[in-house]
């Protein structure tokens, strides 16, 4: 019976996430078909298990865990092992339905660290670029495809003197700015993000970030720009801002290099958006 409940639970959980629209808080909805696959398979298995359960009730003796294994050991022969397995497998159901859905914030930035140098040189591996700050999707494409795509995207923004960054083009624009910083210096930009403040010695650096999801929350990273806020504005971590300003290049001590930054002319505190994530479009 427990097996039936868990299996059908997975079916229901997927349906619930889908219907309630909470799915985008966990994965890029581009991969929605994974949900349908799970729903289909768990439903089939749940029905099979239902029939086994019904059958064993009739016979009254047949334990579903002990049917013919044809010499196959599952390591679930002891009751406590079964109990642990059931508890573990029920855990995602509990988390999915009862836990509040929250968005990642600066806690993760601090833990996963963005303070981490881009270690291209130290490892001698061009792909050893951290996903932080610079949304490098190049590892996901082959080289020439990637360059083609970049140039194509570049054309889209090259001529604009004012960049309006929205939820939809956020990752795209950030990637371009980090790839071709010099083409963007001097342009004005407006975008939203949450504040992340980091200190190095006496210097304080403010960043405006958003979590970008490529596949799922587990592989998400923060993407955004360093900001130089006007002195009369004080901010704190996790506060959401809308900023307007000019793109410049500034030396960032912890990385030991120049990174794009925004000389902010106007900053307003905003409410956190309903969906805090931005997604990579494929």
């Amino acid at each position, binding site marked *: 019976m427990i097996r039936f409940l*868990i299996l059908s639970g997975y079916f229901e959980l*997927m349906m619930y996430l889908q219907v309630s629209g909470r799915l985008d*808080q*966990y*994965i890029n909805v581009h*991969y929605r078909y*994974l*949900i349908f*696959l*799970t729903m289909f*398979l*768990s439903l089939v*298995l749940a029905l*099979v*298990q239902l029939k*086994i359960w019904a059958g064993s009730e009739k016979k009254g003796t047949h334990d579903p*865990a002990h*049917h013919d*294994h*044809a*010499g*196959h*050991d*599952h*390591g*679930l022969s002891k009751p406590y092992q079964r109990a642990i*397995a059931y508890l*573990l*497998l029920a855990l*995602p159901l509990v*988390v*999915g339905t*009862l*836990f*509040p*859905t*929250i968005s*990642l*914030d600066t*806690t*993760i930035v601090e*833990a*996963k*660290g963005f303070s*981490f140098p881009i*270690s291209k040189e130290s*490892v*001698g*591996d061009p*792909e*050893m670029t*951290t996903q932080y700050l610079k949304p490098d999707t190049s*590892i996901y494409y082959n080289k020439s495809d990637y360059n083609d795509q970049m140039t194509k995207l570049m054309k889209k923004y090259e001529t604009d003197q004012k960049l309006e960054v929205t939820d939809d083009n956020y990752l795209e624009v950030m990637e371009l700015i980090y790839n071709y910083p010099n083409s963007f210096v001097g342009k004005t930009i407006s975008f939203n993000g949450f504040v992340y403040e980091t200190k190095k010695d006496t210097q304080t650096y403010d960043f405006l970030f958003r979590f970008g999801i*490529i*596949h*799922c*929350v*587990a*592989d998400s990273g923060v993407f955004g720009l360093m900001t130089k806020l006007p002195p009369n504005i004080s901010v704190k971590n996790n506060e959401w801002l809308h900023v307007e300003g000019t793109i410049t290049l500034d030396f960032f001590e912890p990385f030991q290099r120049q990174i794009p930054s925004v000389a902010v002319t106007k900053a307003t505190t905003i409410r956190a958006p309903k969906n805090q994530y931005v997604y990579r479009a*494929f």
Partner: protein
Amino acid sequence: MFNFLPHSVLQMSTIFLSIVIEAIPFVLLGCIISGALQVFLTPERVQKILPNNKFLAIVVGSFLGFFFPSCECGIVPIITQFMRKGVPEHTAFAFMVTAPIINPIVLFSTYIAFGNSMKFALLRAVGSLLVALLIGSWLAYFKHAPILKKELHLHEETHEPETKKTFRSNSWSALTHGIDEFFDTGRYLIIGSLIASGMQVYLPTHFMLQLTSTKIVGILVMLILAFTMSLCSEADAFVGSSLLSLFGTNAIVAFLVFGPMVDIKNLLMMKRSFHTKFIIQLIALISVIVTIYAFVI
């Protein structure tokens, strides 16, 4: 409900659930197919198509997994069964190390996990084939001590014969087997996801950074992680891709190749069937091959 939990726990549970959501369809699919395999593929059939030449037999064993996928959780009992039926060791173990990797489901999930890119799927497949050829050769030409424990030879044929059953009843037992498989392997997925999400939230960066500072240390750390996390090969690509930014290509390839071959649950099952000395030799050999492979790519 559960709002009282510390903020970091909630963040961890969010990451945890997202790993599970992405991995679970592949685990379900893998378990059902593994169930079908258990029922429809008999060692006799394998033996019929097996060539006599040792090297060819290794090659066949290596590619068998492509057509008869099964995940590493179910593989030890299968090859034990194979060997009881007289399938040579070099074929059986070549199958054991490649089957969880070069099967279409795992390659496909690897492809998806790394953003629709063939690169890691290919590196992974090539790595596992290399290990299979070397391990197979070692068993075929150098290793002569018995592998299978004696008592397992004794009750040979007790579970047999798998008499003529209808397709319907076979499919039924394939599905029920799939359910068993799900409850057995699913728990390792959950444990792995918990560890992975916990690491993301609680492991301080500078600690990881020290570990990833050189290529070889990164590879070794990932071998240990692959072993301790004991992820199912249908799901580990997703965890691997989330660690890519921390460890880099070489270490992640090591993780992807090594993980399905050696992990905690696998080891426990192997210990039941094989001599301990053999298991140690096998694991040492696999570790060395994988490390060298991951280092040079």
